[in-house]
């Protein structure tokens, strides 16, 4: 194997097919960029889930005087009912992690803080706000256990899971991610088709060389290697462009534009970029290499 000879063949081939090479580089960059973007979005969703599921609570609102739910027909919650609920919650440990009781007075105070400087705050009286148990679960997905135990029991007006509100939001992000992935897959298919055609043209434009190589007994590997390396080179160049775009997305779009405006949540870290980048590079090279390999098997037969 003569490395310098193969290298000069590759350089020659890349220059000869410059426009096709550029087309491959760009489509690889766009498709891998979308692919990497979809992976980054996925990492973002999982970061947000970790962040938010850690904070969400199940709220058990108790009946107050004005409640009109069926379970509140006996009027406001009694002390006995309240104690029973607390005891039952205690018995659900370790699923129930912490229990926090918010009285009507506390609820009123929080409400005033939350809507300070707003006319709503003046219109709400303390008796209109329900008292509640705020329960944090060790496993937030097991909300149903708590809901079935307390929903509809006398003295309980409503059981609310904050997670359900978040899930709608996460479903939206998941949808975006699916769309990005679908476009990425489509673009990757386009990339493969383009590489197949590029290899056909390259094999055709060098049929004189390859036919002589066959005649003098060059191995298939040696005949195909320059073509394979060309495809891999173009793919690697495209992947590096895409990784560059991903780094810019994380460093500028996420860290400097989005994150300062949405300080209530956490954002994906550089660790995600560090594993997505090699995935993109390897995907690009493997895809281009195998597309080239199977095309050449057809067009450069012994």
């Amino acid at each position, binding site marked *: *194997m*003569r490395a310098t000879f193969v290298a000069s063949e590759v350089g020659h081939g890349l220059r000869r097919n410059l426009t096709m090479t550029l087309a491959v580089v760009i489509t690889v960059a766009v498709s891998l960029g979308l692919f990497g973007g979809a992976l980054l979005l996925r990492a973002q969703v999982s970061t947000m889930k970790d962040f938010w599921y850690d904070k969400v609570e199940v709220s058990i609102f108790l009946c107050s005087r004005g409640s009109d739910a069926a379970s509140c027909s006996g009027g406001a919650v009694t002390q006995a009912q309240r104690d029973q609920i607390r005891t039952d919650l205690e018995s659900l440990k370790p699923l129930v992690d912490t229990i926090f009781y918010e009285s009507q007075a506390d609820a009123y105070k929080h409400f005033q803080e939350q809507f300070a400087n707003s006319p709503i705050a003046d219109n709400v009286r303390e008796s209109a706000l329900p008292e509640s148990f705020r329960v944090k679960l060790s496993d937030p997905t097991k909300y149903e256990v708590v809901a079935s135990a307390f929903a509809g029991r006398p003295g309980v007006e409503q059981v609310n899971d904050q997670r359900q509100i978040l899930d709608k939001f996460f479903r939206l992000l998941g949808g975006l991610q699916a769309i990005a992935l679908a476009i990425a897959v489509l673009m990757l298919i386009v990339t493969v088709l383009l590489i197949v055609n590029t290899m056909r043209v390259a094999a055709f434009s060098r049929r004189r060389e390859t036919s*002589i190589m*066959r*005649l*003098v*007994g060059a*191995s*298939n590997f*040696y005949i195909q290697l320059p073509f394979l390396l060309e495809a891999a080179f173009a793919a690697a160049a495209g992947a590096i462009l895409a990784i560059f775009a991903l780094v810019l997305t994380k460093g500028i779009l996420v860290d400097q534009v989005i994150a300062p405006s949405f300080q209530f949540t956490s954002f994906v870290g550089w660790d995600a970029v560090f594993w997505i980048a090699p995935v993109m590079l390897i995907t690009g090279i493997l895809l281009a290499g195998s597309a080239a390999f199977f095309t050449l098997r057809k067009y450069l037969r012994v």
Partner: protein
Amino acid sequence: MILFDHVTKLYPSQQRPALDEVSVEIEKGEFVFLVGPSGSGKSTFLRLILREERPTQGSVWVAGKELGHLSNWKIPYFRRQIGTVFQDFRLLPNKTVTENVAFALEVIGKPKAHINKVVPEVLEVVGLEGKENRRPDELSGGEQQRVAIARAFVNRPMLLIADEPTGNLDPGTSVGIMQLLDRLNRLGTTVVMSTHDSAIVDQMRRRVIELEGGHLVRDQSRGVYGYAQ
């Protein structure tokens, strides 16, 4: 060196076989002319030797190997033992004489030092000293064919296949090429050459194998071109 054992070759799209039950043996060191009209099966005969085609029936043996059982990955190594020359020279137009010959060695992974040593040697054998840095379009047809022969011979093959090597050359130039092939044959290389050139065949008086319509119609040592009636 070469043995055809009841070889029939039928191409998929054709009714009549290109070769029909051909059996022939060529010994090591022989010089054999393959003659016959166009479409008689000469090219198929040569392609079978090079294992560019497989026989439909029968078996082809070259250099002790039954080509039907040669696995695909071994074919390149098998072809390194055979030199090939064509009517249209098949040189690379953007490479010099030296580079064209060196190409054949580069692509089978020979070391640079070896190439630098054997290429000038073989160019001297074929009589191209002083033209090493010319490109093919700066050479006459005869000289181009000498480059092709140098490329075929540089790896010192046991067998040289020449498919109408003088087909594009004028008679005077052809004589020079035939003298060169004769010299390579005397160096121990088996030569199988297809041709339409009766003058050459008559003059050389070597073994003649004649094909017609895929049949072997004549196999004559020290033969001439148009002998069979």
